[in-house]
């Protein structure tokens, strides 16, 4: 066995991992297939690990098991018809994907969206962000071996899904937003129910922090694991909570404001290295926990400010934007979701490229995983919170 001192070294290596690895690796290396049916792959990701015992020397992620050719499909469908497909980009935050696509098409067609619709969109997007992060909290718990947080996370998420079901009849793939607005107005009782939910969740979050986030074992496991330095994160195009976990204050809702976000007050939580080094798995985890608090703030303000009026701009059934191209990005729960649309003046997009956060975030996992143990690799991958349909599209 390798002595624990060297193990300690091995687990904290970030940069120059390869050099130090020489000292640590003594035994024979083997290739292990982790996935696509491994419990902690979050779907169908196959990682080929080159390991010496439990210490990983290289990771090769194999993607493509969920490739559906969304971008090609978009070329065969008109702008309205592609909306349900955006739900399938990231099934855990379908509202946000709807939102991002709408923003892109509206910019392309220079459509003015009614104020009420904008607020409804923000409420939905932020509620969906909370739902996603609740699932993340649960899976992070599972990854560390705590079985209970996922049940609690799903319990709270259920309330959000109820709210969505009230509004649009769907619980997972909503297809709620429309080019120029949203499909339905908020039903009666929605505002009260959403407020009650915000109040309840705020208390629950404290409980979850006590149960999981500040649990000493959890901190021991997560701190100093998978440290992603800010420059490396930027080099790899990492966005969203992993980037903010590395201490970079970058949030498109603030830095490149869209919709009604400039009218709302909220902070951008960043990783501060509270329990270990800046940019470790715990920071990435905690950024999301704080983001939920901020989302609650946003939802409350949006509910207060919700103006009366139309929920949808007049957009023709045959929508033909002028020829041109546009790239619009927005802040998804997992990072930057961008749509690059080229229009040739017809009813279908000429080309539609989706830039998803999970793909870029995943690419940063192999370089920071060299020299870590399998247990730590699971955590550092989990803390990026990738979603496979978003990686493969």
């Amino acid at each position: 066995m390798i002595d624990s001192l060297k193990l300690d070294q091995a687990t904290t290596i970030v940069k120059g991992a390869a050099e130090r690895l020489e000292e640590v690796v003594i035994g024979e290396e083997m290739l292990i297939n982790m996935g696509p049916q491994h419990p902690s792959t979050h779907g169908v990701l196959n990682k080929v690990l080159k390991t010496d015992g439990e210490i990983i020397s290289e990771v090769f992620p194999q993607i493509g098991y969920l490739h559906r050719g969304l971008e090609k499909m978009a070329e065969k469908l008109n702008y309205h018809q592609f909306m349900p497909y955006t739900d399938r980009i990231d099934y855990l935050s379908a509202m946000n994907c709807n939102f991002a696509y709408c923003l892109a098409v509206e910019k392309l067609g220079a459509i003015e969206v009614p104020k009420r619709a904008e607020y409804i969109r923000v409420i939905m997007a932020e509620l969906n962000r909370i739902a996603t992060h609740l699932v993340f909290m649960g899976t992070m718990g599972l990854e560390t071996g705590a079985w209970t947080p996922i049940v609690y996370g799903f319990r709270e998420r259920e309330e959000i899904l109820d709210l969505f079901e009230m509004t649009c009849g769907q619980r997972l793939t909503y297809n709620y937003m429309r080019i120029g607005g949203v499909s339905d107005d908020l039903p009666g009782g929605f505002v009260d129910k959403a407020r009650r939910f915000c109040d309840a969740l705020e208390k629950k979050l404290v409980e979850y922090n006590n149960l999981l986030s500040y649990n000493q074992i959890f901190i021991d496991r997560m701190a100093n694991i998978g440290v992603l330095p800010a420059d490396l994160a930027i080099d790899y195009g990492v966005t969203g909570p992993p980037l903010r976990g590395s201490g970079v204050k970058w949030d498109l809702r603030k830095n490149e404001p869209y919709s009604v976000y400039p009218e709302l007050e909220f902070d951008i939580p960043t990783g501060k290295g509270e329990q270990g080094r800046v940019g470790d798995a715990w920071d990435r985890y905690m950024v999301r926990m704080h983001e939920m608090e901020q989302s609650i703030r946003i939802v409350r303000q949006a509910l207060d400010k919700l103006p009366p009026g139309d929920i949808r701009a007049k957009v023709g059934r045959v929508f033909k934007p002028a020829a041109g191209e546009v790239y619009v990005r927005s802040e998804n729960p997992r990072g930057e979701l961008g749509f690059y649309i080229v229009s040739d003046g017809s009813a279908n997009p000429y080309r539609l490229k989706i830039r998803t956060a999970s793909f870029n975030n995943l690419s940063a996992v192999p370089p920071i995983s060299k020299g870590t143990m399998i247990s730590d690799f699971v955590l550092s991958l989990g803390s990026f919170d990738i979603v496979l349909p978003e990686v493969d599209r």
Partner: protein
Amino acid sequence: MLKEYIDAIKLFAEQNLPVINVPVELWYTVWLFIFGGVVLGGMMMFAGLAAYAERRVAGFLQSRLGPNRVGPQGLLQFMADGIKLVLKEDLIPAAADKMLFKIAPYVLFIGTLGVFAALPFSKYVGITNLNLGLLYILAISSLVVIGIIMAGWSSGNKWSLLGGMRSAAQIISYEIPIGICFLTIIMIAGTMNMNDIIRLQEGSVINWFVFRYPPFTMIIFLIYFIASMAEVNRTPFDIPEAESEIVGGYHTEYSGMRFAFFYMGEYGNMFAVSAIASILFLGGWQSPLPFFILNELFGDYAVLTAIEGFGWFLAKALSFVFLMMWLRWTLPRYRVDQLMALCWKVLLPISLACMLVVGVWMAL
């Protein structure tokens, strides 16, 4: 203990039923099979019920119901599970070392079952009364590790191998603090006989070994509890079967009844370590009061003492089992090296220091 009873039955039979004249060896063999069957059945029953209880406790802690369909309150769930497991195909992977793969679950199970032979369940009730009971338990329970390594190695699966290796490292490390805890008790009691150890704690709560040299025996008790949780692979020490990391660990490739043996071994072990904790530190079947309640109420019959003793023993042991379940559904798990660090850098030095202090205290 059992031998005395068999002898008594034989004597009784010879006096009252003069026709019976069986050779002594056959007589003992038959009765050993009968008692063995009782213990085996009891343990399987316990394992099934514990698995059911675990799921109910988990449901309670996670604000859901848990199994409640089969039988009253789902109590017969373990029967349904058992039947399902028996009916499953017994898969053996092509890459497996077939011989070892088949034997491994039995080795593990024997290791667990063997412990039950030395446990005094109540006053007058037990299988054997070994003079070296504690040593025997320490020795026989090590078979579990061998079973786990065999399973991990023979599966022909890298995840199983990792699980088996982790498990071996963990259990062997944690046997050392457990050994120190045993030594402390042996020092205090001056015997390794389980029945004598219990008899020395007679009286009431204050005579229990956990309160003998405060607070050192309490610390020893705590260390024993932590180490025994690691020994039976429960969260936060369930590293050998950490699902999110190495799939199912050493029993990834097992199915059907062989898997059930691992399962029963795990729950049986859980009960065994809890029982040992209650025997060594909390007086086993001794009543926490200075007297046995049933004896006080209905007179001084040995049967009543035995029944009540068994009740106390079960209550003490099962409360540990519940505590283990509670912890499992609350805590995350440690990493392999953190676990080793906890064992070698924290538990071992503290237990050694406590043993030293207790020794000096006894000499004073």
